């Protein structure tokens, strides 16, 4: 086998290897160097990681198993120092590797403005995961300020992410408007307004004079003398191709490593790909052309001919809610005319630039619906004289076509590019949908890669699916619970009651389940619906619960468990703390942590030890905190009138009263509550599923907040005068949710679905109904509220869970 060495595990080289192994897995034995201490990941998705919309794990493109499967020798965290072309070896920090063929894919290095103070701790660039983590960490401290130098794509994505994480952010941009390379002034202005609305401060024509600070960064001083205080400075002013190794090896290097249309450098055994190359005078900074290069290079390595050509590029900004698109050349010039459309009320702006009857540039802000159509006209150099009058209104106005967004997608030719990042065209998507019988967006992502990188084309992909599948695809249609049925959650809940179905097999039989015993999506949902609707009659089906709810502890990534006992309203005592300390020592529990829910988590407990751990905690009077359940979780409280000089009511007492009454109840999604003693709201009641703000006048009852995947302040249900009223109201509200909620639907989503009026009608306006719901809850509690730990610690419930069936490590065979 020939030896292939790759320097740099970035977006470009990852694709090369994929194509290479797909075509001929046996051709090369690969060694992959990467200066970063990790393998290939989707660099462009660092922005969603920064903003918290994705995790790093979700953006890894090739994991350890993939490298192992393809026998790639990984040398991650090791920089290549030089290439010796006469001996044909690559010199890494930890030793040499010989090559037959070599790929240089070193990407580029962020440009750092050469001003005083640029080396201070806290001054960073935005290029890799470490930078992203530094930003995430810096934003963790409340009230901190960041300055982002550079208002281009990268800088703005950094700014938006930091802002979402709660930092005060200022963007300093040298030019007169943001993203001046991609946007004209008008669009730059709309973008600026959008960002300012999100609380990002924008300084244009701002020139950085120096960075101030003694042992760490303290601020940025601009040329006009302004000092912007900052504990974090992000430089995002541009990139430089990383060409040092190539240069020192004596390869032809212009502004970057010069390659021909097969990605070959001036040495026939050395190829280069990605941001470190220059082709016919062009440099690259977006992934679409790099993916094209990767295809060509993989072929060249296998001796197949293909040619790389530079294509038009388009840009989108990955800031949720800022819709912009730009492509081509839109500078004003002799012989060019332009067409502009503005709708200030909607914040919409479109500008097209035409030269010699061809569209040569387009900028759009606010409504980018026709972006792909314009981009196609541009790439195909379609004459536009005929449609000149209505061109700006987009495709639906052309040729008498009906005003239907679907028609626009239908009219696109098969080679129209839908996903720019991955270079996937319409024909590929429709044919894969048909061939593989795909029906969901996730399927299409898995099989075609379309919409799997930056995600801005998701809408288009959905329209294509609707077009290809016709009635079979309707993203707004009632979503079936899972593949086992066509019924949605609402119908299933209704039919369970209407037909009085009282067991999982009955439901599956009567509602014509398509599988014999359901799946991991429908069974837990059905189990909950039956518990909620037939308390006392229905027997909980443990095998239909996720492991956490089956063993009443949270499974950890290494298969151990965590244990969180209840601390009523967040109150604890010496006795409880001592019991926790004893358990931790006795069972050698590796971590003890205060949770975000104001109680204590013991992490890394061995499964076999769980019953004994619980027995000890039970002995000190503690019960399961249900940190694992779709159930009542925590009721946080503040110190309230007991201690606080501002406290108006006994918030701690109310919190404890609620938790003691409601613990042990199962709910559609988890339920977290809090009670604050005054509007200063130290218990953070206004982002909880249910919250109470105490005032001099009584109790303000809030609900439907969220602070996890979504962030949403609560809505006010009502105000009441006494604690008893507040208590009854809250219990009734939760019971209504228990009876109406779809499995895994949190309270805020339930409210959105059923509407405030119906909830107020049942809980606030009608005392009789309220009482009814309160009693239904109490009745269910009588039956289901048991400490699951106690039952397992001593009662022998589910004992099979905690012991291996057999140990045959040293056993003789049976015969």
């Amino acid at each position, binding site marked *: 086998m020939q030896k292939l060495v790759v320097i740099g595990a970035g977006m470009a080289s990852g694709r090369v290897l994929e194509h290479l192994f797909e075509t001929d897995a046996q051709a090369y034995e690969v060694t992959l160097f990467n200066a970063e201490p990790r393998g290939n990941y989707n660099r462009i998705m660092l922005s969603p990681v920064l903003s918290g919309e994705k995790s790093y794990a979700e953006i890894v493109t090739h994991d350890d*198993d993939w490298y192992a499967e393809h026998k790639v020798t990984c040398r991650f965290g090791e920089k290549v120092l030089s290439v010796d072309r006469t001996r044909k070896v690559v010199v890494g920090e930890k030793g040499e590797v010989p090559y037959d063929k070599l790929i240089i894919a070193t990407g580029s290095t962020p440009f750092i403005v050469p001003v005083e103070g640029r080396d201070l701790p806290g001054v960073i660039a935005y290029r890799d995961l470490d930078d992203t983590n530094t930003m995430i960490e810096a934003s963790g401290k409340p009230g901190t300020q960041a300055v982002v130098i550079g208002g281009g794509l990268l800088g703005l994505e950094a700014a938006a992410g930091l802002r979402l994480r709660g930092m005060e952010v200022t963007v300093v941009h040298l030019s007169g408007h943001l993203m001046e390379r991609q946007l004209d002034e008008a669009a730059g202005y709309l973008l600026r307004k959008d960002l300012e609305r999100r609380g990002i401060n924008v300084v244009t024509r701002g020139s950085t004079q120096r960075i101030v600070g003694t042992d760490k960064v303290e601020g940025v001083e601009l040329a006009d003398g302004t000092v912007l205080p900052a504990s974090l400075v992000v430089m995002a002013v541009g990139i430089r191709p990383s060409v040092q190794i190539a240069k020192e090896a004596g390869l032809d290097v212009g502004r970057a490593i010069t390659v021909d249309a097969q990605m070959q450098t001036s040495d026939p055994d050395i190829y280069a790909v990605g941001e470190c190359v220059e082709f016919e005078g062009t440099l690259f900074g977006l992934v679409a052309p790099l993916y094209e290069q990767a295809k060509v290079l993989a072929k060249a390595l296998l001796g197949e001919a293909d040619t790389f050509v530079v294509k038009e590029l388009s840009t989108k900004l990955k800031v949720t809610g800022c819709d912009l698109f730009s492509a081509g050349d839109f500078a004003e010039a002799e012989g060019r005319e332009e067409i502009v459309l503005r709708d200030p009320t909607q914040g919409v702006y479109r500008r097209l630039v035409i030269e010699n009857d061809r569209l040569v540039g387009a900028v759009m802000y606010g409504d980018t619906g026709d972006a792909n159509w314009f981009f196609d006209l541009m790439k195909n150099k379609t004459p536009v004289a005929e449609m000149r009058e209505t061109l700006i209104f987009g495709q639906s106005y052309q040729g008498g076509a009906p005003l239907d967004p679907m028609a626009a997608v239908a009219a696109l030719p098969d080679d129209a590019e839908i996903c720019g990042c991955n270079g996937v065209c319409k024909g590929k998507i429709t044919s894969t949908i048909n061939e593989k019988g795909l029906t969901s967006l996730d*399927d299409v992502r*898995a*099989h075609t890669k379309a919409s799997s990188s930056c995600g801005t084309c998701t809408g288009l992909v959905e329209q294509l699916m609707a077009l290809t599948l016709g009635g079979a695809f309707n993203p707004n249609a009632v979503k079936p619970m899972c593949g086992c049925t066509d019924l949605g959650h609402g119908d299933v809940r209704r039919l369970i009651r209407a037909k009085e179905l009282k067991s999982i097999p009955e439901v599956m039989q009567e509602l014509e389940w398509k*599988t*014999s*015993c*359901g*799946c*991991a999506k429908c*069974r*837990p949902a059905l189990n909950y619906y039956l518990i909620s609707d037939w308390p006392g009659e229905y027997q909980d089906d*443990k*095998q*239909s*619960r*996720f*492991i*956490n709810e089956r*063993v009443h502890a949270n*499974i950890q*990534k290494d*298969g151990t468990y965590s244990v969180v006992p209840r601390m009523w309203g967040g109150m604890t005592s010496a006795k409880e703390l001592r019991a926790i300390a004893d358990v931790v020592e006795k069972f050698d529990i590796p971590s003890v942590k205060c949770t975000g829910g104001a109680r204590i988590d013991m992490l890394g407990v061995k499964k076999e030890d769980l019953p004994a751990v619980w027995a000890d905690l039970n002995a000190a009077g503690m019960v399961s905190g249900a940190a694992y359940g779709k159930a009542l979780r925590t009721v946080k409280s503040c110190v309230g009138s007991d201690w606080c000089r501002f406290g108006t009511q006994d918030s701690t007492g109310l919190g404890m009263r609620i938790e003691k009454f409601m613990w042990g109840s199962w709910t559609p999604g988890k339920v977290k509550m809090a009670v604050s003693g005054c509007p200063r709201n130290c218990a953070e009641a206004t982002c909880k599923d249910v919250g109470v703000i105490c005032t001099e006048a009584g109790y303000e009852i809030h609900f439907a907040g969220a602070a996890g995947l979504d962030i949403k302040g609560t809505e006010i249900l009502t105000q009441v005068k006494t604690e008893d009223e507040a208590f009854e109201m809250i219990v009734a509200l939760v019971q209504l949710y228990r009876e109406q909620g779809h499995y895994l639907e949190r309270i805020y989503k339930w409210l959105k679905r059923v509407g405030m009026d119906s909830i107020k009608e049942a809980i606030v306006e009608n005392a009789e109904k309220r009482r009814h719901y309160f009693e239904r809850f109490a009745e269910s509690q009588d039956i289901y509220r048991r400490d699951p730990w106690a039952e397992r610690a001593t009662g022998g419930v589910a004992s*099979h869970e905690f012991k*291996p*069936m*057999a*140990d*045959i*490590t*040293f*056993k003789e*065979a*049976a*015969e």
Partner: protein
Amino acid sequence: MTTPAWYKIGLVTDIPKRGARCLNTPLGRVAVFRTADDRVFAMEDRCPHKGGPLSQGIVHDRSVTCPLHNAVISLESGEMKGPDEGTVKTFAIRIDAQSQTIEISFDAVAAEPFVEAAE
């Protein structure tokens, strides 16, 4: 060819229906599953994705859903279902029809993950 060695591990009823138990074996942890229709399957207790303990998952039809990130794995072939790729090592099982004793073998033909009651 040497005849495969069989080890007794317990009774079918030791495993809950649509459930699983673990075994400590010389090859590491093995998960033994019992389906709704009382078939028994055994495989390595390690998900190909990130090593999740499959014995802790939800059993449905002839599959188990991994407790960590919901990969679905066929109990019959050990293969991951859907577009994911990966295979879990499976082991041969036989059940004595009379006593309902389960026996496992680590060297019997892997292509036959389920052998009906011996003889």
